């Protein structure tokens, strides 16, 4: 309304425009909208109107776009569902002319957490390898921007729990930590002060194989070679399926077998007659060399 009068004043030298703007400003005074000043997401609210007669009420905002016939002078009720999403709303009231007001709906209290943790699998003993981000949300999944305290906690079986408290700024709190020494599931949780708790699991897996040792013996089928239990340098058995490459050199040429570890041990049969030298490798880890004498 004040913008209309100021515009009219600026255009006072043009009588027609001036007159029109004055009329508009006056007309606007007849149907004011009184929008809520402290609306909260999910809470019902009302918009006040003045004047008399019929009018059309519009509300446009996040997730809502409604049109309703109303009586001037009465309050327009807005349900909790219509105001679930936090954000900027525009209320418009039209009878002979239209007037509008904007208002904000703020998020409710934080009652939920969106919790994203990376990675889902991590080798043991890696520095700053695990990170998590928690976002504070209200009941209707609006981002709660007011500062709140988030407690992160993580633990593995047989080890004491570690924790870290972070202040959520602009709805986000985060943490970072290193992976432990033992393979196994790492339980990580993020909690708000009101007992809202969300859990995630990171699988801590064995690191690269270490100290690969092999043994072998001649059988009717060929040379059966197998590893001792394959472990990483911290003693964690490598996961089943990890490939160990056996290489054999004899008078017939060179042979390779990519054999997967099964229950900690990888096995393969090498078709070799005569003396043979066998070695093994997995990733960058090399094993011992095995010499097996010849037999036809």
């Amino acid at each position: 309304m004040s913008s209309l009068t100021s515009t009219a004043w600026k255009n006072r030298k043009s009588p027609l425009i001036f007159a029109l703007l004055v009329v508009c400003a006056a007309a606007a005074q007849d149907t004011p909208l009184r929008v809520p000043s402290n609306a909260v997401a999910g809470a019902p609210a009302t918009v006040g109107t003045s004047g008399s007669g019929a009018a059309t009420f519009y509300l446009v905002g996040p997730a809502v776009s409604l049109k309703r016939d109303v009586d001037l002078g009465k309050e327009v009720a807005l349900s909790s569902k219509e105001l679930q999403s936090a954000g900027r709303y525009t209320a418009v009231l039209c009878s002979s002319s239209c007037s509008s007001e904007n208002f904000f709906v703020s998020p409710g209290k934080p009652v939920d957490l969106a919790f994203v943790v990376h990675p889902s699998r991590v080798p043991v003993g890696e520095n700053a390898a695990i990170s998590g981000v928690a976002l504070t949300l209200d009941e209707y999944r609006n981002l709660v921007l007011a500062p709140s305290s988030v407690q992160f906690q993580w633990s593995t079986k047989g080890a004491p729990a570690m924790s870290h408290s972070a202040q959520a700024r602009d709805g986000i709190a985060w943490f970072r930590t290193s992976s432990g020494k033992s393979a196994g599931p790492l339980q990580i949780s993020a909690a708000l002060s009101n007992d809202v708790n969300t859990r995630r699991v990171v699988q801590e897996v064995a690191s690269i194989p270490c100290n690969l040792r092999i043994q072998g013996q001649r059988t009717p089928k060929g040379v059966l070679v197998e590893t001792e239990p394959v472990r990483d340098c911290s003693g964690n058995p490598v996961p089943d399926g990890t490939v160990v490459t056996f290489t054999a050199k004899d008078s017939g040429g060179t042979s390779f077998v990519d054999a997967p570890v099964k229950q900690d041990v990888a096995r393969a049969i090498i078709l070799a007659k005569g003396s043979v030298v066998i070695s093994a490798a997995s990733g960058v880890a090399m094993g011992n060399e095995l010499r097996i004498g010849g037999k036809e």
Partner: protein
Amino acid sequence: MCARVASYPQKLKLHLSVLIVLSWCMIATPWRHAFAADASPRVTLTVSQATPRQVEPLTQNAVLRDYKFAWANLAQALESNSAGAINGLFVGDASAQLVAQVNGQKKNGLSSRYENQTHKLEAVFYSPEGDILELHDTAEYDFEILDGGKSIHSEHAIVHYVVLMTPGADRWVVRQLQAVPRF
């Protein structure tokens, strides 16, 4: 005969004028939209305040491109009342809210316009893994609400948005778009 000779240039001028006016009418309406589309959102991004991770130059380019694209499509969706334009650029709650708004508009015969958009983005949080980016958007645009083609509200708005973007398969997508009174 003289009268016929004298009227010929006048007729020509009349024909030319009609032709020009008709051509303009034919192309004006789609061109209006074309102008609106060509006047695509202007987006700028500053990343100096991003923490704990620095926003990489490639990521900055991608975010600028995809955010601009998202808002252009948001405007198109709300003007044409077609939710298809939103797909792939908005996910999660942001997508659900926009779809609900489009459906509400369609049901009530409303539409809205966002024109002459300018967005000043500031990155305030970039996660250690680079999978969550929070931005503050100071957006300026001409906002208009129409009821069956009749304008019922128009304003030049400056709105503050808190934006959450996450990387999708081949682009950054908007997961949360929440207007706030101030940052």
